[in-house]
């Protein structure tokens, strides 16, 4: 499998990354190298091996259901670019 330049542009758009035409060509080459590696891995016979969902053989740690986080709005919003009435302000979003 190899990616076209259109594929690269689409992936960039989905990830909200601006890429120039030069960068598209460079990214295409790099991404296709990755796919070569993936192709090599795919060629390995994995019959009978259970797929892993995590790199380590560990299971999810659970915590008890207790609401004990303090209100730290002031500290959090001190580093926000723009706040008003306790809300974070962001460029207008309309769907």
């Amino acid at each position, binding site marked *: 499998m190899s990616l076209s330049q259109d594929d690269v542009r689409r992936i960039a758009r*989905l990830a*909200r990354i601006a890429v120039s035409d030069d960068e598209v060509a460079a990214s295409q080459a790099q991404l296709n190298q990755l796919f070569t590696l993936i192709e090599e891995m795919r060629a390995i016979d994995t019959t009978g091996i259970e797929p892993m*969902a*995590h*790199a*380590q053989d*560990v*299971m*999810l*740690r*659970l*915590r*008890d*259901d*207790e*609401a*004990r*986080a303090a*209100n*730290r*709005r002031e500290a*959090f*919003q001190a580093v926000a670019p*723009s706040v*008003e*009435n*306790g*809300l*974070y*302000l*962001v*460029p*207008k*979003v*309309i*769907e």
Partner: protein
Amino acid sequence: MKWEVVIGLEVHTQLTTKSKIFSAASTAFGAAPNTQTAVVDIALPGALPVMNRGAVERAIQFGLAIGAKVNRKSIFARKNYFYPDLPKGYQISQFELPVVEGGAITIQVQPAKGDPYEKVINLTRAHLEEDAGKSVHEDFHGASGIDLNRAGTPLLEIVSEPEMRSAAEAVAYAKALYSLVTWIGICDGNMQEGSFRCDVNVSVRPEGQAEFGTRREIKNLNSFKFIEQAIKYEVQWQIDEIESGRKIQQATILFDPDSGETRMMRSKEDAHDYRYFPDPDLPPLVISEEWVERVQRELPELPVAMQARFAEQYGLSAYDARTLTASKELAAFFEATVAAGADAKLAANWIMGDISATLNREEKTIADCPVSSDALAGLIKRISDNTINNKTAKDVLKKMWESGDAADVIIERDGLKQETDTGAIEAIVDAVLAANPKAIEEYRSGKEKALNALVGQVMKGSGGKANPGMALELLKKKVS
């Protein structure tokens, strides 16, 4: 051409945990903006999610309640999209291996025309995920405001198979699901606050065609009425489109309750490609046998089982049993009334009749009923032992409702005791008969019901205190 409607639902139920799914911030509704957020909820770099045991427990409860497979191992995945109320740039959800798979729920459908019927709807899956924050689009000098209190609230998304064939079936399914999740207590059911939100997938196809038509998804319906209105509008719209020679495009749409119409939110072209992948921050969720067994043991009696028991134990009809198990609170009220000594059938009638009607009128639920189950049993006992008749009982209940006094107190105080002195009633019966020679004639010529009309007059003459059964008996005795 005849069209068949195909509907599937995705319901987001907000779980009743105290804290969020991946942080220890509170999930309480209505707090000041951004006062219930932890580092995980606002996605500060390096903050790591820690799973809430209570959210998993509720997913297990749901899985067992619908007879589904509770996966002993399930996976959390990142669903990637950009929106300001989703600070991480992805929602933690489940994709390939959800916590619950399969299961079914029985629905009672009341179609627009025809008799009510039952239908079993199969479920595809239910998975755990986090809610997003809220965007406030009021004008902040051209900006939008973001409140992240809701971000990270645990949701169980419940997905049905596309097995519903009408708006009535979709509403019946939503109601059955609502009743179940509130019954087992995993969701508070507060639809105004968004605790139970439905996405409805609708398509139409010519009757008899095997393949599904192209579907459109109506997002975020938060009332049963809107589900019904939106589906009806959407179905007609799709049929009109196809019959006008146009093709349906897959799309996400919104329902506007004011206009009663659906409108496009986004088409398939710019549909989200979520690029799911397993979340490296969260290893697989492993659920032990012991955990599942304990939840099974602690699961409350479910509505269907309780209906069967009510029919068996109290001799109630299927309809009565179903009505009384509409909510756990109503069922408990009924059982408490019977336990306090009331006749079961009478208790059922009074609860489904006057009590429910008055509650509805006053927009109250059984939890706010001013007449307790003990007090109602006190009233019903006086009906059973013929102290008062049914009609008087209605008046007594009204007074109990207003004053909070016990039935016996009201009966005594207002002198409502039924007249069981035959002599006193006989005098009234004689007077009534004397005034109605025509009725006597009719009765004697074989018109059995002629005397029934006179019972009312005897009742009136006695100030409502006569026993209607006894009055009729006396009337018959006198004329034959």
